[in-house]
């Protein structure tokens, strides 16, 4: 039993933070919004050059063969910069699924290739406009449709740095890859959404802390007032108790049983709740500025809103926690329980 990250993992997270911090700055967000785009090809190329897009691909497919926990650490950093590009959904979910279904697929050989993913659970497909192809779930089977063989109808969303689409397609114009592990794909996506939630939450708190130190009213920095402090402390508490759940969910995701699914759901629920609490606290702490487009906090509120509903609603995830709670042994000795051990 060892609930610590390895030195390599900590270093990797650190490198990611620096790389994303340099390439996805407030200036970048604002420029993208001005240009009304939600994809930066140069940044994506940098991510690809640094191996982020092949992180979870097996080594024999040119990947790094890393696990969900490693990707989750990246996803936290992606959330921290409200990364517009589909790093977790393409490199963390779609590509590994494609590699499992069609290990020799030519798309796997191109680190810059983006594959979008359309599970039955999501009514819209995110980032499909940037994708070379789309993996689609239908009737338990998996189809790979080339981007040019589908029709994408943009569904405007509140998040200015995210694009989602309704998909029109025909199975006759797509490759039938047979049954796939959609349960695993959904768990991965929910996990990475949760991990992004941690990053989103921390950024909201950090933005508010920075502002509260500078802004003065009544002759003092507003951050010296207890009401302001307590908003942010409470948000930080929520983050601190979501993080270990996210990490444990990532470490245990492979079991694919009632317990591991419940933990992923728990992670998704509480990490995005923390992000929501933190974003709202940050808006309040910024006062009128917080309600303005000029201050970046709204980006974190909006991404949180998007990820809260995507990859299983809170009701869906509460149901999975309930299934574990009400149908399996509970109690102090069951924290790390698995199906096999209880069989």
């Amino acid at each position, binding site marked *: *039993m*060892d*609930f*610590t*990250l*390895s030195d390599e*993992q900590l270093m990797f997270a650190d490198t990611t933070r620096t790389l994303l911090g340099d390439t996805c700055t407030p200036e970048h967000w604002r420029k993208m919004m001005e240009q009304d785009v939600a994809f930066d090809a140069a940044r994506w190329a940098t991510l690809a050059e640094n191996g982020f897009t092949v992180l979870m691909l097996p080594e024999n497919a040119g990947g790094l063969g890393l696990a969900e*926990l490693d990707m989750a650490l990246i996803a936290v950093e992606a959330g921290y910069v409200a990364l517009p590009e589909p790093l977790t959904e393409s490199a963390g979910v779609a590509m590994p699924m494609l590699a499992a279904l069609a290990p020799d697929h030519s798309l796997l050989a191109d680190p810059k290739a983006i594959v979008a993913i359309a599970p039955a659970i999501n009514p819209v497909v995110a980032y499909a406009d940037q994708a070379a192809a789309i993996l689609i779930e239908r009737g338990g089977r998996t189809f790979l449709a080339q981007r040019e063989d589908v029709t994408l109808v943009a569904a405007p969303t509140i998040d200015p740095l995210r694009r989602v689409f309704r998909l029109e397609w025909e199975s006759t114009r797509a490759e039938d890859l047979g049954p796939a592990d959609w349960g695993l794909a959904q768990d991965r996506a929910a996990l990475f959404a949760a991990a992004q939630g941690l990053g989103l939450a921390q950024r909201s*708190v950090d933005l508010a*802390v920075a502002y*509260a*130190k500078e802004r003065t009213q009544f002759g*003092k*920095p507003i*951050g*010296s007032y*207890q009401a*302001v*402090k*307590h908003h*942010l*402390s*409470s948000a*930080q*508490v929520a983050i*601190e*108790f*979501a*993080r*270990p*759940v996210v*990490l*444990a969910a990532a*470490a*245990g995701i492979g079991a694919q049983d009632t317990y591991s699914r419940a*933990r992923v759901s*728990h992670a998704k*629920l*509480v990490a995005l709740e923390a992000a929501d609490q933190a974003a709202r606290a940050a808006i309040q702490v910024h006062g009128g500025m917080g309600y303005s487009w000029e201050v970046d906090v709204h980006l974190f509120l909006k991404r949180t809103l998007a990820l809260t509903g995507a990859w299983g609603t809170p009701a869906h995830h*509460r149901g999975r*926690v*309930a299934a574990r*709670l*009400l149908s399996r042994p*509970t*109690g*102090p*000795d*069951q*924290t*790390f329980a698995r199906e096999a051990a209880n069989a």
Partner: protein
Amino acid sequence: MDLNYTPQQNAFRAEVRSWLEANVPKQPLEHYDATREGFEAHRQWEATLKSGDWGMVTWPKEYGGRGVDLIQWLIFEEEYYRAGAPGRVNQNGIFLLGPTLMEFGTHEQKQRFLPPMAAGEEIWAQAWSEPQAGSDLAGIRATAQRAKNANGDDEYVLNGHKIWSSRGAFADWAFGLFREPGSERHKGTSLIFFRLDQPGVTRNPIRKINGHPGFAEIFLEDVRVPAFNRLGDEGQGWHICMATAGFERGLMLRSPARYQAAAAKLAALWQARKVNSRDAGADPVLEADVIRAFMNAEAYALSIYQTASRLIAGAKIGPEASTNKIFWSELDIHLHRTALAILGEEAELLPSAARLAAGDPDWLDDYIFSLAGPIYAGSNEIQRNIIAERMLGLPR
């Protein structure tokens, strides 16, 4: 990261479990705060634990422990709560003073105080708060004046008024915070031990809102103790108290097993009522709260496993201990409020002795106790200040 127990850890769990199955009293003991008899029954239980070397498993063998690490301590606690074993009457000793002694005590002090602490032969109370110094602990007025006894040995003469001392009504010893006469605030403070039955000490039990004499106020009038009873250096008292508070808030005071056991009972209560009670069964809000209580207990457990792993790897507890204290105290209240909501029209009824003997939780009393959580060990308002100032760096 490896979230699997090792074979040794599993074997340890099995050993704890079988010992507890054989030794935990079949009938629940009377509460240690309720009467002297209840207190002594718990002392007896501490002796039984000691007979199996289970007094405080993380301590070295020479002090009455087993020298195991914090993960095994967590396993021990899990089994302890799973078995429904009696509350630890000496928690102030084993969970607060003990780790502090381990860090700041001399070899002689450890040898003198730890073994009887692990055996429950000496039960400890914490005497920090004063009527005028609660949240603002640096405002304490009780004094420790240097003196010599008849043999010329160094002594302290203690004077002052302490209050809210848990177990203080029946305990044997107290560890108190005192100041050098004339010193101010954090300076000149020392942590000093005194016996609660020694000349010059008067203790008056205070009834808690459940009616039990769970804490005491303590008057000290020229209480003489040897300098040996001072922990750490003179003037280092504040620093040591903050380390103790770190253990208290960050790890030991409330082991996650306590809440996981309660959450499991809550789920059982919910499942029974869902079928039998028309009102409760039709209320989806209650189920959402039961799920929430379970998740909170799980999150707390995972967080403590993380803390334990970090401490084993050499880290120290920092201001994040304050986030813990807020989280467990708030989850505890939420959990018990949910239980009372499920009990509905029966919530106000005191449980019968028969039901308690059958192992039913005392939801009502546990709820009342949960309300103290945001107050003791540093109020949650103070914890939020600490998080804001020391974790987030906001100005004072």
